[in-house]
C-alpha cells in the first residue's frame, strides 16, 4: 500500500505512482453475490447474483432506478453490509468473511465515502472534518494535520480550512467531503449520488475533480441516476431488478474541465 511521503504535497503524478502498483489487478471482484432482506413476512431479494470486476484506475458509474439494487450493491462495496451469499474480494481479501471491527478498519483505510448530503459534522471546521478519518486510523497528530491540509489543497480549498460547513457553498462542502474521503489514501473512492444536491455547474466541477483524481490513478465508483453525470465515467453499469443489465464503456466521454469553460459562471 501507499506509504506517506514526509513533506511532499500530493500531486497527480505522485498519486499515480502510489496507485500504480494496483493498476493491473482487479481492485474489486464480486462473485455471484446475493442479498436478501428479511422484512418480517415478505423477503426482499435485493441482489440476485451479481458478478463484476473493477480494475485499478477505473471510473465506474452505477445506474439504475430506485429499487434496482444499486444502493444495496454500493453498501456492499463500501463494506457497510455483507452479502447473503457469494464473495466480495477487495484487493484480494475476502471481505465477506471479516468481522465488524475489521470492516471498520477497511472502510477507514481502503475506502473513501462521498455522500449525496455531504454529511459533514456541523460546527466543525473543514480541516477538522477532513482530519476525522485519520483520527480513527490513529495516526500521530502532525501527520494527521499534514494529510488533512494536503487533502484540502488537492480539492482546491487550501484557503478555506478554518471555515465551518455553514460558511461554505454546497459545492465547497462536497469538496471538503471528497478531501475527507481521500485523507487516508484509499484504494477506492465510493460516491453515492455526489451531485444529487448540487446545481449543474457545481456538479460538473465535482466531476472534474473526480476525473482529475481518476487520471491520478484513483479507482472511482459512482452511483447516480443522471445519465449526464454518468457520462463523465469511463464505464457504466446499469442495475435492474437486482441484476446487472448493462455493463459498457462510455463512448464520447466529455472532459469536465472543457465543459466548464462553456458553462456560464455562477458567482459563489
Amino acid at each position, binding site marked *: 500500500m501507499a506509504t506517506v511521503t514526509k513533506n511532499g504535497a500530493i500531486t497527480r503524478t505522485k498519486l499515480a505512482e502510489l496507485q500504480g502498483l494496483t493498476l493491473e489487478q482487479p481492485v474489486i471482484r464480486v462473485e455471484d453475490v446475493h442479498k436478501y432482506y428479511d422484512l418480517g413476512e415478505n423477503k426482499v431479494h435485493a441482489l440476485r447474483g451479481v458478478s463484476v470486476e473493477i480494475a485499478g484506475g477505473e471510473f465506474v458509474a452505477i445506474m439504475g432506478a430506485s429499487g434496482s439494487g444499486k444502493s444495496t450493491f454500493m*453498501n456492499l462495496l*463500501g463494506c*457497510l*453490509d455483507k452479502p447473503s451469499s457469494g464473495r466480495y474480494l477487495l484487493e484480494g481479501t475476502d471481505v465477506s468473511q471479516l468481522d*465488524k*471491527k475489521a470492516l*471498520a*478498519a477497511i*472502510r*477507514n*483505510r481502503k475506502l473513501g*465515502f462521498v*455522500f449525496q448530503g455531504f*454529511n459533514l*459534522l456541523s*460546527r*466543525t471546521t473543514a480541516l477538522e472534518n477532513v482530519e*476525522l*478519518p485519520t*483520527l*480513527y*486510523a*490513529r495516526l500521530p497528530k502532525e501527520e494527521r494535520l499534514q494529510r488533512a491540509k494536503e487533502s484540502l489543497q488537492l480539492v482546491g480549498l487550501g484557503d478555506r480550512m478554518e471555515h465551518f460547513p455553514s460558511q461554505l457553498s454546497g459545492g465547497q462542502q462536497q469538496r471538503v467531503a471528497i478531501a*475527507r*474521503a481521500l485523507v*487516508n489514501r484509499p484504494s477506492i473512492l465510493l460516491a453515492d449520488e455526489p451531485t444529487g444536491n448540487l446545481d449543474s455547474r457545481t456538479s460538473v466541477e465535482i466531476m472534474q475533480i473526480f476525473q482529475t483524481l481518476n487520471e491520478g490513478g484513483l479507482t472511482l465508483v459512482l452511483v447516480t441516476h443522471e445519465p449526464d453525470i454518468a457520462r463523465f465515467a469511463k464505464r457504466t453499469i446499469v442495475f435492474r431488478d437486482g441484476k446487472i443489465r448493462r455493463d459498457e464503456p462510455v463512448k464520447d466521454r466529455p472532459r469536465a474541465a472543457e465543459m466548464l469553460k462553456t458553462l456560464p459562471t455562477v458567482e459563489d
Partner: protein
Amino acid sequence: MDLISILRIAMRALSRNKMRSALTMLGIIIGVGAVIAMVGVGQGASKQVQDQISAMGSNMLFVSSGTVNRGGLRLGWGQTKTLVYDDMKAIVQQAPAVKEAAPGSATTAQVVFGSDNWFTNVQGTEPQYFDIRSWPMQEGVSFTESDVTSAADVAVIGASVRQNLFGAEDPIGQTVRISKLPFKVVGVLSAKGQSAAMGQDQDDVIFVPITTLQKKLTGEPWLRYIVVSAVSKDATYAAQQEITGLLRDRHRIRQGQDDDFMVRNLADVAQLADQSSRVMTMLLASIAGVSLIVGGIGIMNIMLVSVTERTREIGVRMAIGATEEDVQRQFLIEAVVLSLMGGAAGILFGVGSSLIISKLLGWAVLVSPLAIVAAVIFSAGVGVFFGFYPARKAARLDPIEALRFE
C-alpha cells in the same frame, strides 16, 4: 482515537447545547453538593456532640431522683424525695470506683441586679461540682466548703446570666437578689454553650451552696441529683453498678421493685449520641445520594436524546472507519465528562453551602476530604453507569440505517 481528541469532541458536543448540558449537570451538581453538605453537617454535628461530651468529663455519672408509682399515678423523673445528702456521702465513702461526688438541687427564680432582672435556673451544689464537670471559673472563685457549711449567701453565675444582668460591668463582688434575697457574686463560670443532649443553654444558670438553696430558697431537704466522677473512664461502669447497689440498699428497695432513682453513665450517653449522629449522617447522605441517582438518570435521558439526534453523525463516523468501540467510547466519555464537570461544580456547591450552613445556622460543618473524593468517584461512576446504555445503543446502530436517518 487518542483521549485528547475524544475529550475535544466530547466538549464540542456538549457545548453545542450549552443550556441542555448545564441543566443536565445541575442534577449532578445538586446531588454531589447535597452529599458533601449533608455528610459535612452530619459529621460536624457528630464531632460537636463528641467534643461536648468529652468536655463534660467522660468519667462522669449522673444520679437523679427517680419516678415513683403512687396509687397507680406514675410521676416523672425527679419527683421522688428519697435521694438525700447522706446518699451522696455514702457514695463517696462506700463505692470504691467513685472519686468524687457533688449533690445538686434546683429551682427557678427571678434574679435582679440594679434595674435589670432575669429569670433563670438556680442550682445548689458543693464546690467539687465544678471539678467533676471540669467547668473552670472565668473570673473570681467558686464558693467554698465553709460557705456550704454556713449556708452563705454567695453565688457563682453562668456566662449567659452575667451577660444579661451585668453587660460590660464587672460582676465580682456585686450583689444580686435571688427571690428577693441578696447574694454576693464571687465567681463567673466560663461559657459552655448548648448542651449536647437537650440543646439548652448551659450557661443560663446560677450556682449557690446547696445548703443555702435548701434552707433559704426551696425549703426542700432532699436532692434532685448527684453528680459523680469515677476514678477513671474505664471505671464508670463499675461505679454505676456500685451506686445502684448502694442506693437500692439505702432506699430499702426489694428485689423486683423498680429503682426510685436513675444512674446515667456519660460514656453510654456519648456512645448513644455518636451512634445517633452516625445514623443521621447515613440517612442524610443516602437521601442526598438519591438525588445523585436522579441526576444520573437525567444524564442517561439526555444522552439518549443526543444519540437519536446525532444518528446521522454516528453513521458518518462509522462509514469513515469508526469501530463500535470508538463510537461507544465517544458517548461514554461524553457522559463521564458531563458528570465529572457536574461533580466538580457540585464540590464547590457542597463546600459553599456547608460554609453557608455553618455561618447562618451556627452549626459545626465538617467537610471531609473523604466525602469529596467519594463524590468525585461516585459522579464518575454515575456517568459510566448511566452513560453505558446510550453509548451501547449508539455503537449498535447499523451504519446504513444511521446514514439514511433524517
